[in-house]
C-alpha cells in the first residue's frame, strides 16, 4: 500500500512540474511579443516605453533558461510573483481566497453525492420504470442547464421574487457561522445540480452493470436478502467508476466555480482570476492557474489512493 502510494505521489509531482513548465511556456509559445500582446488594446499598438517597462518587470528581457530557473526557484519558495497592477504578492492573495473556493467545491460535491448516489441506485433498480424515466430525464435536463443559468435563476426566484435568501455575498465563518453556511448553500447547490446529475447517471449505469455479474447471483443463491445484496455486493462494487467521474468533474469544477463565484459574489480564488484576466495581469493569472491545476493533479492522486481503499486488488497490483 505504502509503495503504491509513493509511486503515485511521484507521478503526481512530475505532473505538477509539467503543469508549471507549461504555464511558463504558454506566454512564450503564443506568437508575438508577450509584453506587446498583454498591452494591446483593440489592435492599437502599445506605447513602446510601456512595453520595455513591462518586459523588464516580467523578466522577459533575460534569456529563456534564466527566466525558467528564476520562475521554478520562486515556486519552490512559494513565490508566485507579484501583481502588475499593485505589486501585491500573488501567493498571499491565493492563500486568502483558495480555502473559500475549496469549501464551495467540497460542499457542492457533498450535496451532489448525497442526492446523486442514492437516486442513481434507485434509478438502476427501477430501470425502465416510470421512476427511472423521470430521474433520467431530470438528470438530462440538469446536465443541459449552464451553471450560471442555474445560479441566476435561483437568485431570480429565491432572492428576488420570494426574498427567502440574500442574493449572494460572503461572511467569514468566524464572524457568523450560521450566516456563513446560509450564504454557502446557494452557490453550492448551484454547482451540485449539474454534478449530482453526473453522479446519478454514472451510478445508474454502473449499478446496472454490476447487477449482471456472477457474484451477485451467487450471493442470491446463498439466500442473502435483496437489501444486503444491494448494499454489500452491488453499491460498493459500482463505486469505482463513480469515484473516477466525480474526481474528474471536481477538477473541472475548480475552474467552473469561476462562473458561480461571479454570480453569487463569492470571494474565492475565481473572482480574483476573472479580475486578473480582465486587467490582463499575467503573473496573477499564471499563479492561479498553476495552483488550481496542481490541485487538479493532486485530486487525481487522492482518487488513486481511494481506489486502493475500495478495491484490494489495486493495493497488491
Amino acid at each position, binding site marked *: 500500500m505504502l509503495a503504491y502510494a509513493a509511486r503515485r505521489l511521484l507521478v503526481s509531482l512530475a*505532473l505538477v512540474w*509539467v*503543469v508549471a513548465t*507549461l504555464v511558463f511556456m504558454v*506566454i512564450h509559445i*503564443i506568437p508575438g511579443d508577450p509584453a506587446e*500582446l*498583454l498591452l494591446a488594446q*483593440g489592435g492599437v499598438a502599445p506605447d513602446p516605453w510601456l512595453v520595455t517597462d513591462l518586459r523588464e518587470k516580467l523578466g522577459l528581457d533575460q534569456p529563456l533558461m534564466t527566466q525558467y530557473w528564476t520562475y521554478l526557484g520562486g515556486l519552490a519558495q512559494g513565490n508566485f510573483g507579484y501583481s502588475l497592477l499593485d505589486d501585491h504578492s500573488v501567493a498571499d492573495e491565493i492563500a486568502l481566497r483558495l480555502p473559500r473556493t475549496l469549501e464551495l467545491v467540497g460542499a457542492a460535491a457533498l450535496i451532489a453525492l448525497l442526492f446523486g448516489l442514492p437516486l442513481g441506485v434507485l434509478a*438502476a*433498480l427501477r430501470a*425502465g420504470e416510470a421512476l427511472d424515466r423521470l430521474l433520467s430525464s431530470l438528470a*438530462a*435536463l440538469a*446536465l*443541459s*442547464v*449552464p451553471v*450560471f*443559468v442555474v445560479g*441566476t435563476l435561483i437568485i431570480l426566484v429565491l432572492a*428576488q421574487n420570494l426574498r427567502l435568501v440574500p442574493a449572494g455575498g460572503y461572511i467569514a465563518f468566524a464572524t457568523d457561522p450560521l450566516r456563513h453556511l446560509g450564504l454557502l448553500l446557494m452557490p453550492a447547490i448551484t454547482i451540485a445540480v449539474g454534478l449530482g446529475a453526473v453522479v446519478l447517471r454514472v451510478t445508474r449505469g454502473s449499478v*446496472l452493470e454490476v*447487477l*449482471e*455479474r*456472477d*457474484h451477485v*447471483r451467487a*450471493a*442470491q*443463491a*446463498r*439466500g*442473502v*436478502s*435483496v437489501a*444486503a*445484496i444491494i448494499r*454489500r*455486493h452491488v453499491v460498493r462494487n459500482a463505486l469505482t467508476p463513480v469515484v473516477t467521474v466525480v474526481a474528474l468533474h471536481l477538477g473541472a469544477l*475548480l*475552474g*467552473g466555480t*469561476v*462562473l458561480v463565484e*461571479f454570480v453569487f459574489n463569492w470571494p474565492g480564488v475565481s473572482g480574483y482570476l476573472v479580475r486578473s*484576466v*480582465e486587467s490582463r495581469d*499575467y503573473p496573477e*493569472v*499564471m499563479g*492561479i*492557474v498553476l495552483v*488550481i*491545476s496542481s490541485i*487538479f493533479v493532486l485530486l487525481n492522486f487522492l482518487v488513486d489512493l481511494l481506489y486502493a481503499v*475500495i478495491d*484490494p*486488488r489495486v493495493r497488491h497490483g
Partner: protein
Amino acid sequence: MRRDKLRRLALPASLLGAILLLALAAPVLPLGNPVSQDINHRLAGISAGHWLGQDEYGRDVLTRLIWGARVSLSVAVSATVIATIVGTLLGILGGYFRGMVEIGTVRMAEIVLCFPPMLLALLVVTLLGPGAGTLIFTLAILFTPTFARVAYAETLSVRALDYVTAQEALGARSGRILLRTLLPNIAPPLIVQFSLTIAAAMLLESGLSFLGLGVVPPDPSWGLMIRGARTTMEQAPLLLLWPCLALTGTVLVLNLFCDRLRNALDPGTGGRSRPGFLRRLAVLAGAAEQPAAVPGLLAVRKLTLEVQGPTGPVPVVRDVNITVAPGETLAVVGESGSGKTLTGLAVMGLLPAAVRVTAGQILYTGRDGRTRDLLRLPERALRALRGRDLSMVFQDPASSLNPLLRIDAHLGEALRAHGQRQGIAARVVELLRNVGLPDPESRARSYPHELSGGQRQRVMIAAAIANHPRLLLADEPTTALDVTVQAQILDLLAGLKRSEEGMGMVFVTHNLAVVAEIADRVAVMYAGEVVEEGPVAEVFAAPRHPYTAALIASTPEGDAERLTSIPGRVPQAWAMPEGCRFAPRCEHARAICDQSAPALESPAPGRTTRCLRWKELA
C-alpha cells in the same frame, strides 16, 4: 429494432434542424437590426413590434435571440470543426506511426487535459484579449485532445485487424488499406463526439461571454444577453428568462440528439432490461395450492422455459422431468445450449430476466415433510430455502466471488442469511477446513484474488454447504479449473456426499467420465429436452437413445473402440425440428421420426427414453 431507434432520433434531429435553420436564416428573416438601440423604450414589455419585448438599450429581444443563436452556434461549430480535423489527424498519425510520432501528437495533445478547461480558456483570453476569434481558437485547443484520443484508439484497433496485419506482413503499403478501413469505422464515434463537443463548446462560450470575456458587445450572444439582463432583473425578470431558455433548450436538444444518435449507431439492442433478480419474473401465476406429497427430494415435472426472441417466444427447455432422491446424485449431461444450466437455475428461482417459465412444476419436499411447488412459491419463501435447503455451486469461481469482500464475509453472510448469529468466525474456519483449504484461519481473512482457482471453488463449495443443504446443485463446477485441480474438486464433492447425510446432488456437466465417477443416475439432455434417464451403470451399458449412444461413442474415456463424432450440430432454439429433435443427426432416423415428437417411454423400471425406435434398436 433499428427502425425504432431511428424513429426516436427524429424528434431531437428535427428540433436541432429548426434551430440551425433559424440561425442560418437570421439575415433574411423580417427582423430588425440586432444592435440598433432605442433608449426611449428600454425595458419595454411585449408589444406588436417586439414579441419578446426590448432590452436595457431598447433593442428587440427576439431579434437578438435569433442573431445570438447565429453567433453562439458559429463559434461552437467552427471551433468543433477545427478540433475535429486537427484532432483526428493527430490521432491517426499517432496511431499509425506510434513511437516518437505518437508522443509528438496524441500525448502532446493530452497535456491540455491536465488543465481544467475553463482555466485554460481564461489563460488564453488573458494573452489574446476577448473576442470571437480568441474563443474559436481556445475552444479548438480544448477539444482537440478528445478527438485525437478517439481517432487514436480506432486507428490502433483497425491496425490490429487480421487482414490489415496480413497485408503488412506481405509487405504491402498499408497506408491506403488502413485509411479505407479506418474511415467507416471512425465515423460513428466521431459524429457522436462532434455533436457532444458542440454542446460543450456552447456551454463554455456562453460562460465566457457571461463573464464578459467572450463575445464582445454589442454583438448578441446568449451569454452576453443573460449578463445584461442580470443587471435589470428586478425591473424585467422576463428578459433573463428568454436567453436562459434558448441556451438550455439548445444544449438539451443537442445532448438528446447525441444520446439517441449513439443508440442508433450502436449495433447492440440498446437499453438494458431490468435486472431479473429484483422481482421473480419466472414465478408462475396461479394459486399456491398444496401439491400432493411426492416421494423423494426433488421432482421437476414438465418444465418448459421460453426466451423472448426477435420474432416471438422461443422454447429453450421443453417438458423436462427429473427426480432426485435423498442421498442420490443425479448427473445432467448434454452439449452446451441443451438447457441443463437453465433447468438448474429454474430450481433455484434464479433464471435470467429474459427467460420465462411457461409450464410445469418443481416439487421440493422440505425438512418438515411438506411438498412445495418452487415455481409457485413467493420470492420471500423461496429466498428462505436458498442457501439453506437448496444450494448452488457455479461454473466460474473467479467471477462468483465478490472481489471486494474477504472470504469470511462470503461464508459469514451465508450463515447470517439463515439466522445464525453466534460463533460465525469459528464456523467459517471449520467450513474452510472441511473443504480442504490449507491454513483456514488466514485464508478466511484473504481476498478472492489471493486464492488459486481450485481454492476459490473450495470456498464456493464451503459457502454452499454452510447450512447443510438438502439439495446441492453443482453447475459444471470443474469446467473452469485446471485438469489437475478438477479431480481434487470431484473428490471433495464425492466426500461431501458421505459427510452430509441425506444430501441430494444435481451435477450438471458435459463430461461423461465425471458422470461415471460421481453419479448414481444420469439424465441426458438434448436441445432442451431430457432424451434419456436412468441409473448410470445401466444407461452406459445399454443406452436406449441414439444420442446417448453417440455421446458415449464420442468420449475418449468411454468404452468405444473407435472414437466417433456426432455429425451436424444442435438445432437452433427457433428452428426446432417438428418431430424428434435429434432426427436430423441420427443415423437410425426413419421418416416417422420427422413426423411426430416422440413421447417419453419407459424401456425398463426406473428408466425413460424419448426415442420412437428404441425397441428396434435395443
